[in-house]
């Protein structure tokens, strides 16, 4: 496994596991999940494709898989799925905690 892939798996592990916890009910808003992550992947992944073409940044070859998609290592594209998911998880968890606190 590449070093970058390991970073993604660690980032995703806890949010993914906890998102099935009933009070958060992530699976219930599946279409919103697809819309939010899909739009982020398109817009910010698009920015990334442009940035790599313009040589704003690059990737250490031995830290990523060897093939490229639109000029990006696959990990970098997965980043735009994993991190938005983690953000939505964080947001929904904070909303849940706020509701709990308001009831006290």
């Amino acid at each position: 496994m590449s070093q970058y892939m390991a970073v993604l798996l660690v980032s995703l592990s806890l949010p993914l596991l906890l998102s099935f916890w009933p009070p958060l009910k992530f699976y219930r808003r599946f279409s919103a999940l697809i819309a939010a992550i899909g739009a982020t992947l398109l817009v910010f992944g698009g920015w990334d494709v442009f940035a790599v073409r313009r040589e704003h940044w690059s990737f250490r070859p031995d830290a990523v898989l060897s093939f490229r998609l639109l000029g990006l290592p696959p990990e970098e594209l997965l980043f735009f799925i994993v991190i938005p998911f983690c953000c939505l998880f964080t947001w929904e968890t904070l909303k849940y905690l706020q509701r709990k606190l308001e009831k006290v």
Partner: protein
Amino acid sequence: MIREYTLLALIFSAAVPVMDKICRTGLMRKPLFYVFLGVIFFFKLLVNGYLTSQQIVVYNPAMFSGIRLGSIPVEDFLFGFSMVSFCLIVWEKSG
């Protein structure tokens, strides 16, 4: 001369509050959003800090300001801010 990454990061960061207004999501008026940014900031330091300090991602000095917080270019914070805000706006709008 302003560098390309700096310019793009500023444009996106300025566009997101406008998008929040147009979409009437009102995210940036919610105190909870700033708690969210704080939590994300912490995890960003971990993930982005690791990616940059390990040089998994390497930045072209000619394309950003050269200012870093630890190993992280300041532009990355604007990239992160605009990305997570954009994602939440679409999420709230789709709700």
